């Protein structure tokens, strides 16, 4: 028997290559939607980081006349309480982003773990885990947030960032888990998994090396979806008034604007900027989510048929 065959059992020891991380990022930039989303999101992150250091005024202080319309001194005017809206918007970007990203990362990790194990496990375990996933999918998230939040209010605590992230992860991981489970079910039937099993690779290693590699674009796409849920969820938590309303983020800004009826009194510069910033952030998440879908599923991509017109062979160039 050829001993080299055993020396080169590379399946169990795939060397870590920096390239493998960089390559998906490069692919990300080949897709127009993903590229647009990536640029917007990068801009948002830079905005958020700068906002921690360079706010024009102290976002917490009530030091100006209330309800001033936008002017040179105050680009976005002031609130009823006399805070500078732009400073709040600038300063509140980082916490908003951080909540969105944390929910995205933690939620995706949980859903990868649960989804892939369910898809690759025995039939009985699969049906149990599917049942659990369905329970979490069915229960409306707002109801759980409201119950938890009001219990916390009852003991004179409001949901800080950590409890908020926790409850959003609890209500938000199941969507991804469902996707991963069904994809894993189909991938587990393919030949390369069978061959790995025949060689003797452990199930754990197949699950978390082979399958994760195969569904990587879906994972990234799901991360952006969950991050979107996290951002939206933060605004829900704050809107319901169960969050810590002294913190400054785009959710609490909306809460104060709405509770002072900024939409009725014509203070549009108070309610619209945070709404549009949230909307732009979510928009970038959606773009990235769809871009990754197109990368994972080539039939959705758009192609140019220029060469075809000249009578050449069907040669597609990606646009």
């Amino acid at each position, binding site marked *: 028997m050829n001993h080299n065959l055993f020396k080169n059992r590379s399946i169990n020891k795939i060397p870590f290559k920096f390239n493998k991380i960089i390559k998906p990022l490069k692919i990300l930039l080949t897709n127009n939607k993903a590229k647009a989303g990536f640029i917007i999101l990068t801009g948002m992150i830079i905005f958020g980081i700068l906002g921690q250091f360079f706010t024009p005024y102290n976002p917490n202080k009530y030091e100006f006349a209330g309800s001033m319309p936008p002017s040179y001194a105050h680009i976005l005017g002031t609130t009823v309480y006399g805070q500078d809206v732009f400073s709040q918007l600038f300063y509140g970007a980082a916490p908003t982003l951080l909540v969105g990203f944390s929910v995205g990362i933690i939620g995706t990790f949980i859903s990868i773990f649960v989804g892939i194990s369910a898809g690759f496990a025995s039939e009985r375990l699969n049906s149990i885990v599917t049942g659990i996933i369905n329970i979490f*999918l069915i229960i409306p998230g*707002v*109801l759980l947030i409201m119950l938890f939040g009001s*219990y916390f209010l*009852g*003991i004179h605590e409001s949901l800080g960032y950590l409890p908020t992230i926790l409850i959003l992860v609890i209500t938000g991981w199941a969507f991804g888990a469902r996707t991963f489970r069904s994809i894993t079910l189909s991938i587990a039937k393919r030949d390369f998994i069978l061959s790995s099993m025949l060689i003797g690779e452990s199930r754990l290693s197949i699950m978390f090396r082979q399958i994760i590699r195969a569904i990587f674009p879906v994972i990234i796409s799901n991360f952006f979806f969950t991050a979107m849920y996290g951002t939206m969820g933060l605004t829900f938590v704050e809107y319901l008034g169960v969050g810590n309303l002294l913190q400054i983020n785009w959710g609490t800004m909306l809460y104060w604007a709405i509770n002072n009826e900024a939409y009725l009194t014509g203070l549009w510069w108070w309610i619209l900027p945070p709404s549009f910033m949230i909307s*732009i952030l979510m928009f970038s998440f959606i773009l990235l989510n769809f871009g990754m879908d197109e990368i994972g*599923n080539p039939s959705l991509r758009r192609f140019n048929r220029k060469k075809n017109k000249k009578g050449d062979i069907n040669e597609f160039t990606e646009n």
Partner: protein
Amino acid sequence: MIPYKYIFKKSIAFLVVLYAAITLNFLLPRLIPGDPAEVVYLAIIKEGGGSVNPVYIHQLEAEYGISNAPMYTQYLQYLEDLLHGNLGISIAFFPEPVSSILSEALPWTLYLVITSIVISFFIGNRLGRYAGINRNTFRDLLIDLFSMFMASFPAFVLAFIMLDIFSVDSGIFPIGGAYSSSVNIGFNMPFIVSAIYHSFLPILTIILTSIGGWVLGMRNNIIPNVNSDFISFSENLGLQKEQINRIAYRNAILPNLTGFSMSIGLSVSGVIIEESIFSYPGVGLYMITAIDSLDYPLLQGIFLMVIIAVLVGNLVVDILYGFFDPRIRQEGE
């Protein structure tokens, strides 16, 4: 042919989830540190003054685990109360039992949820079909951008803006309520017209915020179908363009149909938020009051009833799905 086995399987799953939700509702107030039950107890005593019925206080103690009875006795008591439709007494609307508040509010919420989810599903799928068939055109881009923007704009801010423009400023639509006070409640024409008129703005807002997901999902489902072999085959057979599109559409709608039952929970979340903004007398309006006044019996009642409604909705949709998709029927047999 009725897929008995499939229906049986779905019903079992329904009962399991229902039981889990009921138990969760029992456990949550007992798991949170600081004993929210104490808060309820004190609030009731304060609200009712000296006139609180001792029997009621005793029952409250049992319900909220203030009693020193062991956990399983409390649990059995809780289940028994539930079977009798006894959800406790609201604090914010003091002498009124939670069950009577819910029986007034829940029908309006269900009406909003069902109407908006069905309309949104149909319009969303048609728009997505149109975008997917005409893909990479300017119309497709417009529809995509519209859907993405609608899916990303905070739903409650949109509701406030709609309320401001169409109710407060121009007065085209009423500011709140589910029907005007001048009509008799019942199955008569003026009442139905008034109810539709009052619900128009909330339903429109919910449709606008929930349509994006259907459009984009449908578009991405139909594109691989349009490019697939059986479509080229149909083209070669000489079928009309419209017929071919219909075939692709039928195949592409299946994932969205599965998503339909899952989306009920999400839509309910949205509707609850919208109701509080449009002062629509559904569950959502009571929920905001309940949070403000820490009305735990009402909150728990809302939690339970809404989940039961969502579960029943899921079961119905799943069973209907079994009739639509022959593959699922077979799987169950």
